[in-house]
């Protein structure tokens, strides 16, 4: 059954001719009722809608936006998603493009002269700038929270951004969502935007309310020309806010309608790094207290390949160190062709209750957890989304007696979540401790695929999981990674890595992930295994993938050469 919601489309048209055209199109395509006016500036137009609209929602569209025929259904979906994400009382506007809060990266769900990439997302994204081509106003909430636009700023630019700012000031979130996808036939007028944003009206409006000297908008950063640093002085009476902290506060205030997420920290260990493992548990203990009202952190220690280690004694030692922290121990008895480390993860995944609020976070025994931003992470945990955060690497020297390193030197920027896709080319930009999987995603990976690699098993898991799940990557520091003498990173003999990488490539090739435009989501283990054994992957790799990769490389080289030549002119 199609979802319907009472709303109207509002368009501020450039002239009467455009109004006539829209009326004809509306009749012809049976579009929902449109309010078409011409004359006022955009700020006055929005004020009029909030004052006069008889519905709870209003969809504002530019007059060069092509609205899809099923817009009513899309709007209903958008409202449902926004309500589900943050609660029906918490949001003021939704658009289809903007600047993502936290990462400050542009997100677009539209086709316009700048882009045509439309990734679908099952959840909306909080934004700090929204594009006004299409915006859904939650009239009821705007009125209830006494939303007002500043009287000093008028015109045809930045009404979208200023509306967003005023929403946040009234404790209402602004979101971007793929359900409002449209075709926008304009790339915007950058010159007009630049003039407006550097003009005294906007500059004064901003400086009066906020301390930030750079404003992140979808049209690019706006510099505040005469910043006032009064907020930094002793005994300052300056009550202006940091806009981006205000937004973050608003995101953190989202009360989860859903049940508190349970994040199962899975640590695979052969019990040979107990001092490091204790450091990891110490960090979990600290984190657990910090985020207890946001996330339920649990620990599963999956023991593999323990060899001659006295497991009972080691468990008792770990339990002593863990104190009140409850740990589930799994002793793996691997009789499969899987690598021990991977099998350990599989056992832990199988031990987790399958539910929407269950997540898996694989933290190796020599890694550790950063507690502070986990509460922000909790707002992005979603049963259909793989969360990728930031990790920090540390060059460390350890002596066996301590539960902390003798020397630890941070290497900021060693890992970078934005480059996560390059993991699949063999570069390590996102270690597995940067990733929080929905439990069912890993469950499906293990039930549908036979993973035979070893060192690249983490990338394989992520790659296969993301076929069906959204990926949300944000520069939020969640884990520390130790580089020390026992670390595989420093192994000179890379045979295992090369072997593993080839296995990983063969697996994804045979899973049809790379060469099929339509991936068979129900591929079975039998199919997979058959393909693997037949050596089909080698043929595919040799004749198909190599050709494609070479083609890409050649194109890249030509482009680089072209750019170099251009720069010499």
């Amino acid at each position, binding site marked *: 059954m199609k979802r319907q919601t009472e709303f109207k489309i509002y368009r501020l048209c450039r002239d009467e001719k455009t109004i006539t055209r829209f009326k004809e199109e509306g009749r012809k395509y049976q579009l929902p009722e449109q309010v078409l006016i011409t004359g006022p500036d955009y700020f006055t137009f929005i004020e009029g809608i909030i004052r006069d609209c008889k519905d709870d929602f209003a969809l504002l569209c530019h007059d060069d936006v092509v609205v899809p025929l099923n817009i009513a259904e899309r709007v209903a979906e958008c409202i449902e998603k926004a309500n589900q994400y943050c609660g029906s009382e918490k949001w003021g506007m939704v658009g289809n493009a903007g600047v993502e809060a936290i990462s400050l990266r542009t997100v677009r769900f539209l086709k316009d002269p700048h882009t045509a990439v439309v990734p679908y997302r099952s959840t909306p994204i909080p934004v700090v700038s929204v594009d006004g081509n299409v915006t859904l106003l939650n009239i009821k909430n705007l009125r209830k929270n006494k939303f007002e636009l500043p009287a000093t700023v008028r015109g045809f630019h930045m009404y979208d951004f200023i509306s967003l700012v005023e929403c946040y000031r009234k404790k209402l979130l602004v979101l971007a969502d793929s359900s409002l996808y449209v075709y926008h036939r304009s790339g915007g007028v950058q010159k007009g935007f630049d003039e407006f944003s550097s003009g005294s009206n906007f500059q004064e409006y901003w400086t009066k309310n906020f*301390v*930030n*000297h*750079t*404003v*992140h908008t979808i049209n690019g950063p706006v510099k505040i020309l*005469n*910043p006032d*640093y009064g907020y*930094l*002085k*002793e*005994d300052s009476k300056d009550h202006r806010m*940091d806009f*981006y902290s205000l937004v973050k506060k608003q995101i953190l205030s989202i009360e989860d309608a859903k049940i508190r997420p349970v994040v199962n920290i899975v640590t695979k260990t052969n019990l040979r790094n107990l001092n490091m493992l204790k450091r990891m548990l*110490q*960090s979990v203990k*600290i984190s657990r*207290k*910090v985020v207890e009202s946001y996330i339920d952190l649990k620990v599963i220690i999956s023991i593999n390949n323990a060899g001659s280690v006295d497991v009972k004694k080691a468990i008792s030692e770990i339990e002593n160190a863990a*104190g009140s922290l409850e740990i589930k121990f799994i002793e793996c008895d691997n009789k499969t062709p899987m690598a021990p480390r991977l099998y350990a993860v599989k056992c832990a995944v199988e031990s987790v209750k399958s539910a929407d609020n269950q997540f898996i976070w694989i933290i190796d025994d020599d890694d*550790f957890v*950063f*507690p*502070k931003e986990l509460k922000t992470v909790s707002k992005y945990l979603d049963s259909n989304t793989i969360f990728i955060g930031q990790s*920090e690497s*540390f060059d460390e020297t350890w002596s066996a007696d*301590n*539960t*902390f*390193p*003798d020397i*630890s*030197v*941070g290497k*900021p920027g060693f890992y970078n979540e934005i480059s996560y896709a390059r993991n699949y080319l063999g570069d390590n930009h996102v270690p597995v401790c940067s990733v929080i999987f929905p439990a069912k995603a890993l469950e499906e990976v293990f039930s549908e695929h036979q993973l035979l690699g070893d060192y690249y098993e983490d990338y394989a898991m992520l790659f296969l999981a993301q076929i069906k799940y959204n990926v949300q990557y944000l520069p939020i*520091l969640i884990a*520390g990674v130790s580089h020390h003498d026992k670390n595989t990173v420093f192994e000179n003999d890379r045979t295992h890595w090369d072997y593993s990488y080839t296995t990983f490539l063969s697996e994804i090739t045979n899973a049809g992930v790379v060469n099929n435009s339509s991936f068979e989501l129900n591929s079975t283990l039998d199919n997979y295994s058959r393909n693997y054994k037949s050596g089909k992957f080698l043929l595919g790799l040799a004749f198909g993938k190599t050709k494609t990769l070479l083609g890409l490389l050649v194109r890249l080289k030509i482009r680089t050469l072209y750019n170099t030549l251009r720069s010499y002119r």
Partner: protein
Amino acid sequence: MELKKAVDVFCSVSASDGLDNVRNLLLPSLERLAGDYCTSLHLVDFTGDDSVTLESTEKVSVIVHHNSHQLGFGAAHNFLFDKVKPSGFFLIINSDISCSENLFSELFKTLDDREDVGIVEGRQLPYEHPKGFNPLTGETNWASGACMLVNPVFFKQVDGFDEDFWMYCEDVDLSWRAWLNGYKVVHSPKAVVYHYTGGFFEYREDRFYLEQFWGGVNYLYLTYKYWGNIHLWKATFVLKRQYLPKKFKDAILAEFISRKKNYKRAKGYRGRLLALRDRIGINGFNSYR
């Protein structure tokens, strides 16, 4: 029967999330400390409405001292020192820190009942403070105020922190005055505290923070205080060469100039300064020779 050792812990709850940090990070970790210690956590509350309240725990007594207006870091700890009058070494610690279980035992082990030690500094992890120390003696030119065990005799003798710093660098100044008054400043590498919430990764570039502003102002003040006008111009030159917006640098300079008339020079230290320059490297920031 051996009596428990009493330790006073001072913490200034200035930031809005400071009390949450004490509740979730600092206090639980003090509760977990190993050894026979009787710990009193002294908080200073600036709200003026007595809104900062925190229950004592089984092992830690929490005492909130109220003040009607906001104090800088140094002034807050001087205020606590006057109120508490600690008889033994007391700990100054940030609210966003979690102590390792052996913190006290390691700090006191490093101290080893030596009366010539003015400050023992804990080690911050995972981000170590970017400065050196002598690996044999632990001597360091300055100790971070994020976690320092302070000798009350020395603290009283030097009149505590210099309140003119208001915020940032007052710990460097206190450490230097320790050295200049015949006390040692020692780093204790096994006295670990976890400062996950340190500022290394959370400063955005679209605004400035107190640390950036006061770090600049107090860099000039510290130079002026110990080396006078002759070196001040050099410090000003260094500041002007920093990759920062000109208007921000101008604001730092303006703040320094407006406060300069009230600043007090450190006098009578010239000989010791020259002697110590070779020993512990009091010759500027983050350099150790």
